[in-house]
């Protein structure tokens, strides 16, 4: 059963048609990769899913509910979390505090709190935040200011923040960009494990083909705003249309 269904979505910026009749179905519990050359419209598609942009026409349905017209925080409350291409983290706070925020937040958008209790008195929430940091191998950077992290670490932190929410669908925009090889491999292992253990559905935009082919169960190829192919990974490798799109987009 598909948990996310995008049908005939169009989005233009002035005269530029960034998305044209885009269709996408993500099956529950799978990892679906979205690839394509720079400027193909991949991030725009995610923006239309999370409420940052509204499609001009078309429909977006998640878990049986339409996401169109909902505010970003309302969409998140339905269970969609996103890791951004440019990391969106709380730069002024410490790494640990960054993870605490989604741990305090509840699915309905309320914040587990009363104004006078101390952050430190919440044992279970602290334990969860610490576990999230362990999961992404960042426990040693706990007290660092998030803005001073490397780009790869920022993204791993953002991933921990999203995972802390127990999302039903995790959208990742180039999760390994800016990471060293070893961290990229750790991230692949982390995502694979999460999908296996927690059955979180994921849609991943990625340029690194090693990552794509290690993780994806299905791949959509986007070029100039349209989905040109959608198939199993083994059929995508060496697909003539895909080769053409990448070569055509290269100059």
């Amino acid at each position, binding site marked *: 059963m598909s948990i996310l269904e995008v049908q005939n979505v169009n989005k233009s910026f002035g005269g530029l048609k960034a998305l044209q009749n885009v269709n996408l179905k993500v099956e529950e519990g799978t990892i679906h990769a979205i690839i394509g050359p720079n400027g193909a419209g991949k991030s725009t598609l995610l923006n239309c899913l999370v409420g940052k942009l509204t499609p001009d026409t078309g429909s977006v349905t998640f878990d049986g509910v339409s996401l169109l017209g909902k505010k970003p*925080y309302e969409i998140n409350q339905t269970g969609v979390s996103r890791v951004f291409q440019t990391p*969106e983290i709380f730069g002024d706070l410490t790494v640990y505090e960054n993870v605490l925020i989604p741990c305090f937040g509840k699915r309905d958008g309320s914040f587990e709190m009363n104004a006078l209790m101390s952050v430190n008195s919440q044992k279970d929430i602290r334990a969860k935040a610490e576990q999230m940091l362990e999961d992404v191998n960042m426990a040693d950077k706990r007290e660092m200011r998030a803005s001073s992290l490397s780009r790869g670490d920022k993204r791993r932190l953002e991933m921990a923040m999203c995972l802390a929410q127990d999302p039903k669908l995790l959208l990742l925009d180039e999760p390994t960009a800016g990471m060293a090889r070893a961290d990229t491999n750790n991230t692949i292992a982390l995502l694979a494990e999460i999908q296996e253990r927690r059955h979180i559905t994921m849609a991943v935009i990625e340029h690194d083909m090693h990552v794509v082919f290690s993780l994806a169960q299905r791949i959509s190829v986007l070029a100039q705003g349209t989905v040109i192919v959608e198939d199993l990974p083994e059929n995508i490798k060496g697909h003539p249309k895909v080769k053409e799109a990448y070569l055509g987009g290269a100059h």
Partner: protein
Amino acid sequence: MFGLNKKDSILMIAVAALALLAPFILNIFPNDSALAFFNAGYPDLMQRFVIFGIFAIGFNLLFGLTGYLSFGHAAFLGVGSYAAVWMFKLLNYNVVPAIVLSIVVAAAFSLVIGYISLRRSGIYFSILTLAFAQMMFVTAYSDLLGRWLGITLTNGETGLQVYNDDPQILLGNGPNVPHLFGLEMRAKEVWDIGPWEFTLPVGYYLCAVLMLASFYLAIRIFRSPFGLMLRAIKSNQTRLNYTGLNSKPYTLAVFVISGMYAGLAGGLLACMDPLAGAERMQWTASGEVVIMTILGGAGTLIGPILGSGAIKYLENVFSKLNEGLLHDWFGFMPDGLEGALVWVVSKFTGEGWHLTLGGLFMLVIIFLPGGLVEGGNKIRSWIQNRTGRGSPPADTASTPAE
């Protein structure tokens, strides 16, 4: 202790000790010494220290934590004063109902103004709060609302005060000045110890206790998940939205809390001197609390108290300085030089005090953007380096909630 960690407990105890011993500390110079000029242990001045401390602590909850710069906070202070005087006029001079009403009225005003102003952020938010405050100032200054209702509400530019024919239905035989269940605010104990003279005013101690309570509450808010959330609002609202959290209710909540602090400060001003005037709501008064908070260190716990203390103290010293005193001080110099120096310095004292304040503010913003707290941290790590007590703590200056 009391739900505070060790560091915060020490800070709380230090502030409490300073506040309770202020009448002695601030009159450290013997009464007839030349330095007695720099004493500040007078009831009026000490009361202003702690009252404006409350105002700045509350302002810092909003500005320091969320980054929303309100440029109209004096409006809440003003309505607090009016509310308190109205309690004196209607009931009696007991300060308890006056203080309670001033907080409640300020909360109501800040709820409405906050609800509307928080629809925008950044400079637009500041402009909206400024516009509201100026509208309230004009309304109070010309008593527009009162005239429209056909009553005296703010008494216009004369200011609101208590008259003999006011109802004062609970007055009975009670005192004819503000009091706490009979204990008059203006009462004081004067201790002569050797060449020293110390004044212990009742009004000051009431304000000081309320300031300590406000400070304690502020620490608790800083350290709570609510405080964490507010700092997250300042840091990155986009991430907050994509974390399923709508920041509006939290920002509004802290706006109202901070308005209530201002209302309390306004109420206390009226309790110390049962008068309320529109000038308390003017934009310069709103600007002053911004300056106090930034000068002390926005977003730090102790900053607003240091800032308000420093400004009120310097204001007192500089506006008291007159040419006669300056001639005394520079008298040892050759005549021409003396005259020139006095001429220059006198431009920055008395009426010219605001020039000094402006200059001081610029120096702090340029060289110490973290305010006095940052200055203190710099000195501390400098001393630690000099005495070779290991390396300075990793990020003294950058810990946002010191």
